[in-house]
């Protein structure tokens, strides 16, 4: 690959200094306290409706300013997903509107039925306890397959059968006919091949960002200003406008630094409610912060899913046909809806489709009375790849095949184009997966360990495991991909960079600065990025999700940067015509075609601002409308110790090796991989929102009962890469942010299988499930 100047530099993060000094401002740090506080009253039933609410006593609590109930708010449903909106020309692509500010129709345990506004949170809590609610209660349904049988009262009237969506991608009859089959099932059941069927399940993982969901709203200049912890400020502005029924221009959203999002903050939660309260109270500043406990059931975790899989394969180690059917439980509200399980079944197909003659990817998304669910890092793909890898692990194990060799024979390779995607946009233009696997295999000492761990006995055993992954980059061609960037030359020759894309901890500000510097021809240190988004002035961008920003927003940065470079050179030519054509900008100066310095960039910048006859503030504003996609790949290898009587798995060594295209900043990509590995290890072994199926109530809504890994639960994490130069990325780059949370969990599953011979299908593999499995197999 061609060496670039600023892209590829492992430079220090542009936000690190402010963050280690405590100076970086997050939402609550900016709140003008004391201000009004708002707290929500949640239902104590999981399904039914509010018959009446008596707020008389609550309103008498000293300090209470107002109590609003579900009968006071406008009857205007709005969509909450962090998806692009669509113009009338593509109105059919718009998200469903199924949420109200407060609702008398209770769909989930803890649904939002009233809100107290008071001078302080103590008064809020006291008043909440004094609100009397009369309910009409209906039976709760939590199992999606039960829900599909129909309920007396549909969860949402817009979907009377509780089915949000159903999709099925099948190999075409023409393609099946080539192999003498009429249906996909014919290929799966062909007696010339081995047949296997498995059922997998994945629980609801919670994002557990350390900053809770917070906003404060006030009115200024006749507009509602909402300062919020969000990944998607421009979408939030639109949704607040929709929810309040006011022009979107009357809403201004400000997004400061945020303390993690991982998908929660790709939904709109309580900011519209807060904006509405503020509007009711004459624009006084109101703060609404969710508690740690509320986050577990009143924002959106990963959708719980189950999958039925069938496959046929030959003695030549080649997959012949596979079928996946997935059911996803979206809970009482659609949020991100069907896109999530669609990602599960699609990624299942992409990863090992190379030799298959037939394939089925079918999925249902179902309304139930379960908690809110929505986007979480990698958006359905960890569940699909978990299932794909359970299947691969089982086949290799059952046939005594080497798991790496078997996977390499069947995995995605360079040139893959998904036949089911419109226009074939989802494709692996580059793929260094085999080299990634080679690196990982060597590091974990695969062959030696396989020999060492063979034929173990006793209660404590060791194993090594492997899993591969695929992930697409951004959301084209399924959804609109657009981003805008603005670059402006400052008086001193430095550059101001403004993005609609957001820094959410992933390092976006730093890599955008590097890409801008590369395009313009200056140093990254010369680029000043405006980190906060204020929708009144920030360019439009959908925000941080889908591992899209470095790819899509990066394309906008490159476009704007190249345009500014041209403007700088044209201005230099105008000022110094004698220097001729073909000027160059490098080393903070303008050079002519013979290599002679024309002027410094700083002096040219001063002329641009202050030249009496020809001043021109040099700036470029560019939108990128991206229609391509690029598949990123990689793998994880894990070495574990399994204490069977304790149901305890210790990850001793673990490595993820990835093809993310070209690394814009290798140290920042490494950071992403570490964090994703930690979250995946948590999902593999302990993280699950537990729901009482009778009431729909979340049982473990604290950080003591919902276990994310602590420093003592994780081993040293090893990240490595084999770069490729993707032709569609602005600088050869592909998805990064979400990719590392996919393959560690199934690699741990594979290592447990290697250690014990026991097959687990339900993630997370908690001590409970492990002990049950070892007992079932007679090992303890």
């Amino acid at each position, binding site marked *: 690959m061609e060496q670039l100047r600023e892209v590829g530099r492992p430079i*220090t*993060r542009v*936000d*690190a*200094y*402010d*963050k*280690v*000094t*405590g*100076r*970086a*401002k*997050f939402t*609550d*740090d900016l709140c003008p*306290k*004391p201000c009004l506080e708002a707290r929500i009253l949640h239902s104590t039933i999981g399904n039914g409706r509010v018959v009446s609410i008596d707020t008389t006593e609550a309103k008498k609590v000293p300090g209470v300013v107002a109590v609003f109930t579900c009968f006071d708010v406008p009857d205007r449903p709005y969509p909450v997903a962090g998806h692009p909106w669509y113009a009338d020309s593509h109105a059919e692509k718009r998200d469903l509107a199924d949420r109200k500010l407060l609702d008398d129709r209770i769909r989930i345990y803890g649904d939002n039925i009233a809100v107290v506004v008071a001078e302080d949170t*103590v008064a809020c809590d006291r008043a909440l306890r004094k609100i009397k609610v009369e309910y009409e209660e209906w039976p709760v349904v939590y199992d999606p397959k039960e829900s599909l049988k129909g309920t007396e009262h549909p969860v949402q009237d817009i979907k009377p059968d509780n089915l949000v969506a159903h999709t099925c991608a099948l190999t075409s009859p023409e393609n099946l006919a080539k192999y003498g089959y009429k249906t996909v099932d014919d290929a799966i059941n062909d007696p010339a091949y081995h047949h296997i069927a498995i059922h997998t399940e994945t629980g609801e993982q919670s*994002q*557990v*960002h*350390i*900053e*809770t969901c917070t906003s404060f709203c006030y009115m200024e200049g006749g507009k509602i200003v909402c300062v919020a912890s969000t990944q998607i400020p421009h979408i939030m502005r639109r949704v607040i406008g929709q929810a309040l029924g006011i022009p979107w221009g009357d809403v201004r959203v400000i997004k400061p*630094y*945020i*303390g*993690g999002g*991982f998908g929660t903050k790709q939904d709109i939660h309580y900011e519209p409610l807060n904006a509405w309260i503020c509007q009711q109270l004459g624009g006084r500043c109101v703060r609404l912060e969710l*508690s*740690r406990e509320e986050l577990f059931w009143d924002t959106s975790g990963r959708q719980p899913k189950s999958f039925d899989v069938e496959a046929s394969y030959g003695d030549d180690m080649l997959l012949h046909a596979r079928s996946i059917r997935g059911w996803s439980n979206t809970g009482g509200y659609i949020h991100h809806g069907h896109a999530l399980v669609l990602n599960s079944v699609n990624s299942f197909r992409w990863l090992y489709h190379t030799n298959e003659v037939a394939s089925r990817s079918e999925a249902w998304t179902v309304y139930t009375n379960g908690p809110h669910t929505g986007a979480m890092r990698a958006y359905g793909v960890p569940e699909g790849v978990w299932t794909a890898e359970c299947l691969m692990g089982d086949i290799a194990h059952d046939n005594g095949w080497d798991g790496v060799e078997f996977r390499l024979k069947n995995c995605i390779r360079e040139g893959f184009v998904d036949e089911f995607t419109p226009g074939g946009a989802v494709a692996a233009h580059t793929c260094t997966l085999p080299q990634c696997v080679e690196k990982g295999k060597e590091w974990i000492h695969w062959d030696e360990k396989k020999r060492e761990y063979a034929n173990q006995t006793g209660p404590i055993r060791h194993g090594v495991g492997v899993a591969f992954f695929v992930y697409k980059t951004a959301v084209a061609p399924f959804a609109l991909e657009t981003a805008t960037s603005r670059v402006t030359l400052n008086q001193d020759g430095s550059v101001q960079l403004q993005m609609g894309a957001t820094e*959410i*901890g*992933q*390092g976006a500000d730093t890599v955008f600065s590097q890409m801008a510097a590369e395009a313009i021809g200056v140093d990254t240190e010369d680029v000043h990025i405006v980190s906060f988004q204020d929708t009144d002035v920030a360019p439009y961008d959908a925000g941080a999700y889908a591992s899209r920003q470095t790819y899509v927003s990066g394309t906008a940065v490159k476009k704007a940067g190249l345009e500014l470079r041209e403007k700088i050179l044209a201005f230099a030519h105008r000022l110094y015509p004698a220097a001729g054509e073909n000027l160059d900008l490098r080393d903070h100066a303008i050079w002519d075609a013979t290599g002679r310095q024309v002027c410094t960039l700083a002096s040219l910048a001063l002329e641009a601002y202050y030249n009496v006859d020809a001043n021109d503030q040099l700036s470029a504003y560019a939108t990128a409308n991206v229609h391509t996609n690029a598949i990123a790949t990689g793998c994880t290898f894990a070495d574990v110790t399994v204490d069977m009587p304790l149901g305890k798995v210790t990850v001793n060594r673990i490595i993820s090796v990835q093809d993310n295209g070209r690394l814009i900043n290798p*140290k*920042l990509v*490494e*950071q992403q991989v*570490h*964090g*994703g*590995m*930690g*979250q995946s290890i948590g999902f593999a072994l302990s993280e699950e929102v537990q729901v009482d199926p009778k009431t729909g109530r979340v049982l473990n809504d*604290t*950080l*003591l009962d919902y276990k*994310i*890994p*602590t*420093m*003592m639960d*994780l081993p*040293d*994490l090893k990240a490595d890469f084999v770069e490729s130069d993707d032709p569609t990325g602005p600088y050869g780059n592909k998805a990064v942010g979400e990719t590392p949370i996919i393959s560690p969990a199934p690699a741990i599953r594979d290592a447990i299988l290697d250690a014990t011979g026991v097959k687990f299908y339900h993630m997370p593999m908690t001590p409970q499930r492990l002990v049950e499995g070892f007992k079932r197999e007679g090992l303890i």
Partner: protein
Amino acid sequence: MAMRILKCTINGKPVEVGYDPRESLLDTLRDRLHLTGTKRGCEVGECGACTVLIDGVATDSCLYLTDWAQGKDILTIEGVQKADGSLDPVQQAFIDEFAVQCGFCIPGIIMSAIEMERTGKTYTRDEIRKQLSGHLCRCTGYENIVNAVEKAVDVMDGVVGEGTEKSA
């Protein structure tokens, strides 16, 4: 409830501030003194984001009543930088080792690391993990945080400790 006056030392300076006797030190620091570098993640002592040093001891300020802070010597993240503006070795190590992502848990972890650093002792990686296990971070997988703390305590061991060779 009637307000009271807190008299204590915060970041080396004597402070007098009114407080509600029911309020946590975290709220007093953030809401009355505008020391917003100390973060609120759970309010029940589970996450460690609100850690400050009270008389040198790393403490969850969300669980510590302001009322108990009378006469105490409190250090927050805002008081860590030296008077000349230079960073504490822990802060510098967090930058150099790429230990910072969203940054929300970082001030709390830095305060606990400073408590360790100021003992002048050296720590193995396992000891660092154990010492800091009360801090939750969701971005980093802790890898670079452990690297940074290891580096910083080694630097300070050379300055104030015995400069011992690590065995592990």
